[in-house]
């Protein structure tokens, strides 16, 4: 699925300082029944965001007008649980382009990279600073610079660099995905298939 290129993102951020946020919270299974990729953003954090009668829960951060932006800042081990890419779609469709956390679950992180959401893993210390900065001023801006692999709290200039492998970085910068790459080496793949041990 093609997505918008990612270069430098400057935005306010939404804080969610909870550890082990799992994919069943990001999008509960009962909302996975679509056969098209549409409307998942509406059900992002469904059960934390809405009461049983579908009225918004006032104390959940997505329902709090104080916080907004294209960056979601999560607690440690963000995205644990299922392989459902719907979780990453929900994050993207809601309007987030970047998730910052001190630790990501594996499959969720890979899914994000495949659909154009940048997972930025920072040190626990830096994550704490980000949470503190947002708490002190919800309008504080964060810059996520993919070419330089750097995340900066613009108010104070504090920054940290983050890792991403070169291949995925190129893809994100250009809005390419893996199928574009794999299609180009199909000859190698079919030749390889002839040669498998069994």
């Amino acid at each position: 699925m093609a997505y918008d290129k990612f270069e430098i993102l400057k935005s306010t951020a939404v804080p969610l300082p909870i550890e082990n946020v799992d994919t069943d919270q990001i999008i509960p299974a009962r909302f996975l029944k679509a056969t098209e990729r549409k409307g998942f953003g509406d059900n992002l954090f469904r059960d934390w965001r809405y009461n049983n009668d579908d009225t918004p829960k006032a104390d959940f951060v997505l329902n709090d007008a104080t916080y907004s932006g294209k960056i979601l800042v999560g607690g440690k081990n963000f995205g644990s649980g299922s392989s459902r890419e719907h979780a990453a779609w929900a994050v993207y469709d809601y309007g987030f382009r970047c998730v910052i956390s001190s630790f990501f679950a594996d499959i969720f992180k890979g899914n994000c990279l495949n659909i154009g959401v940048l997972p930025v893993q920072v040190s626990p210390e830096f994550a704490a600073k980000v949470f503190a900065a947002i708490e002190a001023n919800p309008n504080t801006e964060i810059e996520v610079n993919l070419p330089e692999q750097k995340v900066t709290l613009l108010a104070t200039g504090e920054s940290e660099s983050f890792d991403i492998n070169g291949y995925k970085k190129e893809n994100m910068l250009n809005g390419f995905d893996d199928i574009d790459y794999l299609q180009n080496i199909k000859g190698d793949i079919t030749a390889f298939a002839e040669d498998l041990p069994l």
Partner: protein
Amino acid sequence: MSKTLFDKVWDSHVVKHVEDGPDVLFIDRHMVHEVTSPVAFLGIENRGIDVLYPSKTFATADHNTPTINQHLPVADPLSANQLKALEENAAKHGISHWGLGHEKNGIVHVVGPEYGITQPGATIVCGDSHTSTHGAFGAIAFGIGTSEVEMVLATQCIMQPKPKKMRINVKGELSFGVTPKDVALYIISKLTTSGATGYFVEYAGDVFENMTMEGRMTVCNLSIEMGARGGMIAPDEKTFEYVKGREFTPTGAAWDKAMAYWKTLKTDDDAVFDKELTFDAADIEPMITYGTNPGMGMGISKSIPNAEDLEGGVATYKKSLGYMDFSEGDDMIGKPIDFVFIGSCTNGRIEDFRAFASIIKGRKKADHVTAWLVPGSHKVEAAIKEEGILDIIHEAGFELREPGCSACLAMNDDKVPAGKLAVSTSNRNFEGRQGPGSRTLLASPLVAAAAAVTGKVTDPRELMENANA
């Protein structure tokens, strides 16, 4: 150079290594189900690409299917639509499809091994994180996202950086009443849900060597719950014996060739792991979880730990206990329960139903308990009948449902109501996993059976005859 089992299988499937990037990994077996595949099929169609190797993909419907009256049309229009999409996509692309009502239908990770689709040394993926189950056969098996499902359909490959390697040894002999599920929950409680993130695990040591294939599947299934990409166990005589003679298993000369190769699939003596952990089997007792992730588990006779004694955020821990309506220091034993679920790709195989039956035999279901007994496949269902377990189930006042994922993820009607407490043999106790507001205690089939007949959390050892005692 010395290699681990994981290296051997991974390296033999690398089509190409991308510089400063992932490996292009060739996939031998691809399983698809109705929930995570429709958007992938749409994707290849939008790109105008065909499925490259239709014979390497296998479709089964399981996540979204009812567990009663499967002969009737599916009532929920959205579920029906997903099932129809799978059927149509499979037909259009020439992929085998074991849909609802098909005699081979069942949970994807249960039917794969049953029909010999799962084989040692293979790379196996599926858009479901518990694909790690197949690692029990010495395969590299793991869950993928829908973009990757699309990649496999289009090119039979995915692009993944090679994970780090961890070996987990459990040595000694398991105590009375301790099952493979307890071993896995014990390991996860020690590692936490993120302790193996970035790693692929090999399980080694006498406990796994002595385990049945079904037990090994339960352990490998739960690898993902400690964050690992997957887990695997070196194939041995038990593995070969299990695989032999199944529908998709090679025969004749192909079998001999396969055997010769499969026997090479073990970690070399001097191979090195990035991390190695060793546990003592004697420390493990029947386990139960008390929180909202599988790492929050403990021996059933213990009491809920204090936040201060644990790693991780105190606020998150308290939120979790708050959701469960439990307090630090509570005993789990004696807590009244409302629901029991036996099933899922973790514990929905015949040995699990045998274990369940061994406890309920001659007893009665507790009146206030609702129990869902859901076999992992039609094959399991048939064995339950053949072995006389169905009679034991009925005599004790239980009923057997039809196969599917059911309350493991509660996408169908099998939902635990808000606030109710369930003892479940599945794999996740996340908030609302078994229905909005539901509360889940993960445990073995023995613990679940003990709860089903007593109506509360009960140490199953009290209801078992200890032959050695």
